[in-house]
Each structure stands twice: as C-alpha cells, then as structure tokens.
C-alpha cells in the first residue's frame, strides 16, 4: 500500500461544489490530501510557491472569476516547471467543442460534474485510482487523455 496520501487540488469558485467534492473524496478508499482554491490565479500563486511539493492531480473548474480554468490550464502548460502536472477539467459544460478545446490546450482528463453524490464519488474514485500508473511513466503522460 502507498504510504503517502495522494495530493489532490480542487479549483472551484462554488462553495457548495467544493464541499460536495471534498465529502465525496473523503469517502473513497484511498488516502488523499485535498487543497482547495477559488480561482485559477490562486492555484498559480500556490504552484509557483511550492516548487517541491506539487499535487499529483488537479481538478479545475472552467467558469471562475479572476482567472478561469481555460486560461489557467494554458498558463500551466506553458510554464516549464508546471507543464507536466496532471490536470482534470471539472466542469458542467458538456459541449463537445469545449471538451475538445480543453484537450487540445493540454487537459489530461475531462469530467462532467455529476449531480448525484454517489455518481460523483464513483467518478472521483475512477480518476484518482486511475492516475497512479501515469505518475511513473513520462512517455504515457503526454498521450494521457481520458473523458468521463
């Protein structure tokens, strides 16, 4: 068993959605350490300050004030220190165009925010438990696209 909890970050401006997510994450059978931010700028400030301790997985909402998820994703992918982070877009949009654009701009995972708690728990578990194997293989990471 892995000894260190998996570092997960959620960036979402909606307080209810953050609580819903945190509760669901806590209920899955994998130890995680969750940090929450309200917009893309807050996440970038955190990432730039924490060189050695980057999260293994970032859940990023698209529609947020100050800096939206799309801008934030572009900034992550163009920053040499951050470009390899695994980013999961976590949004209510199910537009095929939006989904493809986020992938083209470097998203690894696209998740449609589920409305039901059980569904959310299942979705998060699917992503979090799936991610481990890609941490160790740089070659696969660039081709790692996954949509739920």
């Amino acid at each position, binding site marked *: 068993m892995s000894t260190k909890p998996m570092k997960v970050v959620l960036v979402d401006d909606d307080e209810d959605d953050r609580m819903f997510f945190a509760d669901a994450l806590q209920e899955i*059978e994998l130890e995680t350490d969750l940090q929450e931010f309200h917009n893309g700028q807050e996440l970038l400030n955190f990432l730039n300050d924490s060189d050695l301790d980057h999260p293994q997985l970032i859940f990023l909402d698209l529609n947020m004030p100050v800096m939206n998820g799309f801008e934030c994703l572009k900034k992550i992918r163009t920053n040499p220190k951050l470009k390899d982070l695994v980013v999961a877009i976590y949004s209510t949009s199910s537009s095929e165009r939006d989904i493809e654009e986020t992938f083209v701009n470097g998203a690894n995972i696209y998740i449609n925010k589920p409305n039901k708690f059980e569904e959310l728990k299942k979705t998060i578990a699917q992503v979090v438990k799936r991610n481990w194997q890609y941490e160790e293989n*740089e070659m696969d990471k660039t*081709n790692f*696209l*996954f949509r739920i």
Partner: protein
Amino acid sequence: MKFRLNYTPSELIQKVVAEQLNRMGVSFSFNELGQLVLDGKISGDIMAQITERLRKLGITLSEAGMNSIVGDIKNAIEELVYSEDIRKTTISVYLSNKLGYSYSYLSNLFSEETYTSIENFIILRKIEYTKRLILEEDMSLTEIAYKLDYSSVAHLSGQFKKVTGLTPTTFLRILQRRKTKNT
C-alpha cells in the same frame, strides 16, 4: 522514405542502462525478472550519479524487494503486451511461471495495491500501446487490431472508447491539433 521502428522496450532499456553503467565502470547484471543487480558495495555518491544519468534518459530506479512484486507484475505485463509470442500463453500461466507465485496471490496483491485488476491493467496497457502505434508508427486501427490479437477493429475501437472516453479518431485529431498548435 519512412520506416517503422520495431523494438522490444525491455531489451532496449537494458541496453541503454548497460551502456551508461559500462561507461561508469560499474559492474552489474540483469536477473531473470529484468531487475538490475549491482555487484559489490556501491557508494552513495556513485548511486546518485547512476540515478541522475538514468533519470536524464527518463529511467527511474526503485529498490526491489517484496513490495516490488507489483512492479514485477507490471514489467511482465509490459512484455506481454509487446510480445506476440507471450500473448499466446494464458495470462495466469505466464505470470505465475515468470514470477514464481500463484496467480491468485499475484492477482489479490495487485488489486490491493493498484485498485485495479491485472486483466484491467492489461487492457489499459494495450490501449496505451495502441496510442503509441497510431501516433508514432502511423499504423491503422485494422493493422493494430491484428497485431494486438483483437477479434475485430470494432472490438479494439470499442475498448479504446471505454478506456479513454474518446474514439480513436477524436483522440488522433486532438493530438494532431496539439502538435500543430505547438509548432
């Protein structure tokens, strides 16, 4: 002219590692599990140099012990996915013969540590290999389905969609658009 590169990853990696260690004058061998065995006592300084040289080539080292059985299963699966000959054997026979444990033991250990089954992991690795063949070898899905022993293109395509949530065509379009964007 365009050429396909045919290679076995485990052999290629061993050759790369051997070249680096020979250059450093380190005495070593590879055991039957493909693990690197360093002979004699290695100082911390030399170990750091080895780690750094290999890291630059995208190769990381992890200490082998009881906890590395899962790592050995993963390596064995990697070989299985890449080798048409190995795929002719059943998975359980292949893994238990290669690693010297019963399949049920290996299977339980693997699920406990990775939260996925060996069978599912093989599917994931086959899809990763498919991606590589599409992108790097320019192979068609028909060719890949044949190479990886899928009963039909539809079966491969369906499995690809199930694992990635995307059709192979969408996947390829996204990667091509990414490439155009970055050049």
